[in-house]
């Protein structure tokens, strides 16, 4: 703050009110003077520079700019020779001058289902009608700080809610009032995945819920605008009214959220500008270049404090790498041609701001693009490109005066003019008098040293070996020095007006006599140029995914033959020895003895080894950012497909256990859960490439203790008993049926008449449940005790559909005959029980009884640990209950494939099926067996023999990064105490918040 000295220029700093405002304090002055800034290097816009230019301003607007400009008579001329003039910066993402929202208190443990307000949308986290201007109060302190960064305009909004309402565009003009400062009170609309703190309404409790809510709100607004509504919804009306203003979506600086926003852009065709994560370099190809604009954070991770080796060991390679790679992110984004602006919102000082700007430039970012990211791009995002962001006729006179090229080391912004009003950051007019002098008083010679005269002056006086303490003061062009002689308890005072190169003047000596003094300047010590101490280090390479065990490139399909293996076909051939399996183009091409194979086929000797199809886990919660949307008793509108986390290390761990396909299920916090996702564990691939192609859609249902909330002391949500659970389902199915009928009726209207007919309201939740009734979506139902299993089948039968799979189904053995009759499969645990009351009768023979009764049985994990040894769990079907080994193996391969309706492409070793194969060191169900190679569609994603090399590479990379961080610390830079963030482990019951 010290360096930010402000004062008013005489003559042009007088507050001038609007022309139509009455004036009672004197005679009215109407501003009509011109200001001209001459002889400067003017950067009109990035990439367009003129030398010896002139900028002519009047009333806050640029009248003209160029090299040959006639100055009107009433012009004040400011000579800016040697200076550079830049358009000032624009910040898009800030809550500058907006009052922070007050957090609403929460009482008790029960959830709140209804909104606090009425007249608005049903969900309190949709605050589209909110206008940030209502909580606006100009904050001079922050404004001056932001001007120090170079900003002249800030687009500000309140950080609260999923739809956060509209923003306000403010000029950082301290000299005039809000009439001038506020450029727009409705500049932008803002969105996020975070709920508001001003309401405790529990929905949505997850990111997937937030996504569904945004979609539903969008569809509701369409429907609302097409209908003559009996009721008012001010939120929707505001959203409709703001249709054409720019929209900014905050990802929370999260990489996966960024992808989710891109998904919404494509689906809803809304032109969101995304506040991105700074990790775009990891998955730049997944961002749709044609449609998106980004706001990149300009904060960069600090090097870690690595002085404690035990703690350092806990820092993940991923976090270390981010320090190394983050500075090159803007460069990578610029290379992909995605337009982007910078935000300073996570930066804490102007020093850091410019240091980081210089850093990203030294890591490859073009200077002009950097300048664009601060000027023209944000102006375009705001739709204000015709008045801000450039130095051009009719644009606002918002500009910076610097002593050199903006991004050069040592360049200082001395003035920041906003709407033609000067704001001085560093007073150039203060004369620098630093140096060593010979001071002569009464023929006595002293040595005088002056330091830091432009900021906070200090001085020191020496004679021989005696040092005299000096109190110094330097302002308004006067220098005053008070010299203390402590030994004799005397003082001397000297003063002078600085107007020439010599310091000399009048004063009193130690004896109190008036004296004249003079100085002779001694040779300057060579000035140390201040440089940024942090060096450039080559960024370490990015891997897929960008963390430990990532690959430098994504594994590719390779034609491969496994020779001489014991092959578990899962087909009528059974388990056949000394057999070859040939893989061509990702498919199984042939199975047999000594089969011929084309040249260039990769040959794997599988002698004494076993080859099986990949393990399929029907019930998994890995690879997701959230699992439960528990905010309501039905959440059919949410989808796990929206929240897949392709970087979860558990994907790789599962591959090491031979797992190739999983179904990621919604949790069991509510009776009707969300839509599930079926993915291939293609480690390193994008989310979309992991999704199982053309798989049937599924949804998770749940019964019993979890949906009754028995184990988390919440007593307000219906249902609290198994009796209520039945009615939840009956109610939703009935409503979905009626919903469907309405649409069928509407769709039957002939085209000619359709234009006049009003379509029914589109409801994502009802759509999903209607799909179930139509047989287009299939149910996996979390269930434990026989009564509820029976109930669920009866409810389904009443509505004429089938429960595809009962998952957990630990009392399936008690109703196996009924399940068989209904046609439901069972996906169960091998030996879990007794962890809650409803599993007290769970038995490890459950699988075998159901199997013997003709039910299709799978073993699943619901657990990231067990999932990587499902092969051993299959053996438990043999141990407990005596299922044959061949059939037991199908419990983790072919049977889950059938339950997921993907048995036509996976689940067995059969010609033309996907080459999802696992090579085992020995009998696949033995505890002594290990997966050696795991292949998905012909590409090998896991090789046990490569692990040691990977660990070695990681170790080397860590030690390189640690040595760089030590280097950074040794140069006196600040480092960050390690905070190790680990990923949450999800089970059925895991809640997001």
């Amino acid at each position, binding site marked *: 703050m010290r360096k930010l000295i402000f004062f008013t220029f005489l003559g042009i700093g007088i507050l001038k009110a609007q022309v139509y405002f009455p004036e009672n304090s004197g005679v009215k002055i109407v501003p009509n003077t011109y200001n001209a800034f001459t002889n400067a290097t003017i950067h009109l816009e990035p990439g367009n520079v003129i030398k010896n230019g002139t900028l002519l301003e009047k009333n806050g607007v640029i009248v003209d700019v160029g090299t040959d400009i006639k100055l009107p008579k009433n012009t004040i001329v400011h000579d800016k020779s040697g200076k550079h003039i830049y358009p000032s910066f624009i910040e898009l993402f800030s809550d500058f001058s907006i009052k922070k929202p007050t957090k609403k208190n929460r009482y008790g443990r029960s959830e709140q289902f209804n909104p606090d307000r009425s007249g608005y949308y049903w969900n309190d986290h949709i605050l589209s009608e909110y206008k940030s201007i209502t909580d606006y109060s100009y904050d001079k302190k922050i404004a001056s700080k932001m001007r120090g960064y170079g900003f002249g305009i800030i687009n500000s909004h309140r950080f609260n809610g999923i739809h956060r309402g509209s923003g306000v565009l403010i000029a950082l003009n301290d000299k005039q009032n809000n009439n001038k400062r506020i450029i727009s009170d409705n500049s932008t609309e803002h969105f996020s995945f975070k709920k508001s703190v001003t309401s405790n309404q529990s929905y949505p409790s997850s990111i997937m819920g937030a996504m569904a809510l945004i979609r539903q709100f969008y569809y509701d607004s369409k429907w609302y605008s097409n209908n003559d509504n009996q009721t008012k919804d001010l939120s929707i009306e505001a959203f409709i009214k703001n249709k054409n203003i720019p929209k900014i979506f905050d990802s929370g600086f999260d990489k996966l959220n960024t992808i989710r926003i891109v998904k919404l852009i494509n689906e809803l065709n809304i032109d969101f500008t995304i506040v991105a994560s700074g990790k775009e370099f990891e998955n730049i190809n997944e961002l749709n270049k044609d449609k998106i604009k980004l706001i990149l954070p300009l904060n960069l991770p600090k090097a870690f404090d690595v002085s404690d080796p035990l*703690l350092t060991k806990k820092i993940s390679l991923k976090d270390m790498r981010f320090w190394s790679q983050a500075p090159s992110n803007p460069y990578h984004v610029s290379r992909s041609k995605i337009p982007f602006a910078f935000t300073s919102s996570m930066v804490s000082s102007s020093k850091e701001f410019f240091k980081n700007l210089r850093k990203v430039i030294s890591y490859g970012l073009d200077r002009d693009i950097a300048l664009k990211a601060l000027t023209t791009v944000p102006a375009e995002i705001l739709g204000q490109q015709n008045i801000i962001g450039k130095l051009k006729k009719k644009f606002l006179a918002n500009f910076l005066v610097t002593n050199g090229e903006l991004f050069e080391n040592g360049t200082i912004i001395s003035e920041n003019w906003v709407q033609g009003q000067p704001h001085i950051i560093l007073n150039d007019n203060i004369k620098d008098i630093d140096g060593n002098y010979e001071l002569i008083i009464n023929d006595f010679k002293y040595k005088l040293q002056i330091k830091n005269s432009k900021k906070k002056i200090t001085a020191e006086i020496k004679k021989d070996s005696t040092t005299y303490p000096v109190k110094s003061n330097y302002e308004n062009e006067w220098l005053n020095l008070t010299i203390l002689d402590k030994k004799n308890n005397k003082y001397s005072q000297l003063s002078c007006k600085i107007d020439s190169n010599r310091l000399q003047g009048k004063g009193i000596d130690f004896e109190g006599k008036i004296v004249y003094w003079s100085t002779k300047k001694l040779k300057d010590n060579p000035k140390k140029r201040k440089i940024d101490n942090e060096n450039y280090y080559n960024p370490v390479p990015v891997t897929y995914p960008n963390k430990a065990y990532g690959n430098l490139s994504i594994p590719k399909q390779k034609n491969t033959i496994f020779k001489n293996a014991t092959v578990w076909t899962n087909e009528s051939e059974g388990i056949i020895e000394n057999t070859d399996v040939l893989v061509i183009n990702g498919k199984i091409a042939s199975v047999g003895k000594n089969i011929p194979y084309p040249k260039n086929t990769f040959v794997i000797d599988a002698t004494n080894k076993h080859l099986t199809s990949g393990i399929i886990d029907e019930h998994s919660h890995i690879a997701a950012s959230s699992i439960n949307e528990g905010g309501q008793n039905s959440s059919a509108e949410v989808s796990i497909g929206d929240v897949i986390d392709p970087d979860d290390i558990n994907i790789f761990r599962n591959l090491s256990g031979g797992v190739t396909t999983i179904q990621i299920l919604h949790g069991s916090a509510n009776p009707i859960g969300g839509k599930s996702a079926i993915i291939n564990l293609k480690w390193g691939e994008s989310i979309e490439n992991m999704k199982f192609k053309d798989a049937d859609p599924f949804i998770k249902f749940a019964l019993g203790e979890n949906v009754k909330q028995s184990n988390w002391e919440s007593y307000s949500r219906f249902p609290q008993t198994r009796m209520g659970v039945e009615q939840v389902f009956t109610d939703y199915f009935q409503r979905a049926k009626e919903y469907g009928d309405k649409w069928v009726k509407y769709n039957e209207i002939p085209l000619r008449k359709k234009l006049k007919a009003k379509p029914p309201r589109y409801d994502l939740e009802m759509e999903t449940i209607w799909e179930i009734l139509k047989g287009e979506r299939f149910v996996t139902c979390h269930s434990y005790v026989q009564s509820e299993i029976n109930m669920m089948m009866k409810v389904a039968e009443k509505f004429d559909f089938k429960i595809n799979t009962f998952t957990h189904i630990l009392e399936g053995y008690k109703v196996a005959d009924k399940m068989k009759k209904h046609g439901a499969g069972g996906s169960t645990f091998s030996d879990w029980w007794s962890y809650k009351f409803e599993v007290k009768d769970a038995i490890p023979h459950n699988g075998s009884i159901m199997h013997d009764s003709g039910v299709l049985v799978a073993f699943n994990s619901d657990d990231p640990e067990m999932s990587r040894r499902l092969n051993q769990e299959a053996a438990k079907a043999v141990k407990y209950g005596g299922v044959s080994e061949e059939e037991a193996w199908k419990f983790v391969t072919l049977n889950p494939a059938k339950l997921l309706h993907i048995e036509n492409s996976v689940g067995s070793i059969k010609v033309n099926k996907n080459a999802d194969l696992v090579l085992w060191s020995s009998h696949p169900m033995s*505890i002594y067996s290990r997966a050696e190679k795991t292949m998905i569609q012909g590409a090998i994603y896991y090789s046990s023999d490569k692990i040691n090399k990977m660990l070695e590479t990681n170790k080397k990379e860590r030690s390189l990064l640690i040595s760089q961080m030590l280097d950074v610390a040794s140069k006196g830079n600040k480092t960050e105490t390690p905070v190790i963030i680990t990923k949450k482990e999800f089970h059925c019951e895991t809640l997001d918040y």
Partner: protein
Amino acid sequence: MIKKIFTLTSLLLFNMSFSQQTPGDEQTNKILINNCFVHIGNGEIIEDGAVGFSEGKITYVGKSISNDSINEKFNVINARGKHLYPGFIAVNSTLGLVEIDAVRASRDQDEIGDFLPHIRSLVAYNAESKIIESVRPNGVLIAQVTPRGGVISGKSSIMQMDAWNWEDAVIKSDEGIHLNWPSPYSIDYRNRKLTKNKNYLKSVKLIDNFFSESKVSIKQSPLNIPYESMKKIFDGSQTLYLHANYEKQIVDGVSFLKSKKIKNIVLIHGEESENQIDFLKKHEIPVVISKPHRLPLSEDQDLNYPYKLAKTLVDGGLLVSIDLAGSMERIHTRNLPFFAGTFSAFGLEKEEALKLITYNAAKILKIDKNYGSIVKGKSATLILSDGDALDMRSNNISHAYIDGRKISLETHQTKLWNRYQNKYKKQ
């Protein structure tokens, strides 16, 4: 085979109304298990061996005996091709203290308070737990029953798994005290963040005070029961179990206990013991490592670290056993042999892996005089499996004995199995 046994026993119609199997009778006749692989438990194996026992004690261990030379008084079990093991021992378990995890009323493992050396697990031990009976058919016959929580959780006792009540069950009562060393890191579970624990030294100081007070406190009125309960730690007649995972905890904890002249120290969990092998060896500290069925501590760690740890420590010359604590620990006790099997799959020789849950466990718990290996004069606590008992593929226990008493291998679960199998058979 096993199916047949169960069908047979179900025909005998054991009293269905009892949840717990009736404890076996005292051994009256002499038994000889002949022609089997005898896994001694100490690393040795006798192929084609035999074991005889009477009155609960092992009387013969050696080569198999031909039919003609067998003493008539022996009941002979011809176990050709089968495998005989000492009963498996579960260390640091909570069997019998909790029945159903989610039901608070059934949880008796964690008393409130920080320093509770006077708390004794055995009095809460439910000898009739349905979970206890479910671990026996897989070979687990002995468990150290340990309280959880606090800084000093309390005292553990060694129990055998076939008893009418806790007094019947106890093999060794109040044999050790469990100290949970404070973590040098603080973990914010909500945000999954780990940072330095600023209160670490403060927590250590509290332990120091408690030990110092206990050491000097004397038996006089008023008697300080907690301090008094620590006395046998100092004289070495009880073991101090140090629960610690991180390197810093291990070094600080052991050094502290050594400075307090604690004689018998056992390290429990020891996630990062790999980096302190020499230190642990120097101080002769056995390590009871966490079960291998867990995930690596961090995403960077070797995928198979939890599986490989036993091999690394055994190779380093440490005495190693397996700790059962963790999620769903009681129900997973029946997978104890497979934990050993996993350690074998990742490097340990099979008989070495077996030692972890037999000989080594008994030695660590100081019950090796009677249990943990098949040696003449020791207790006849044995299991007979159709195949390799460390592999779920072949773990099929046909006979089990505790102190010579033949125990039932039926459970609440096998009863339900039989009941519903019969239901469907009739359809």
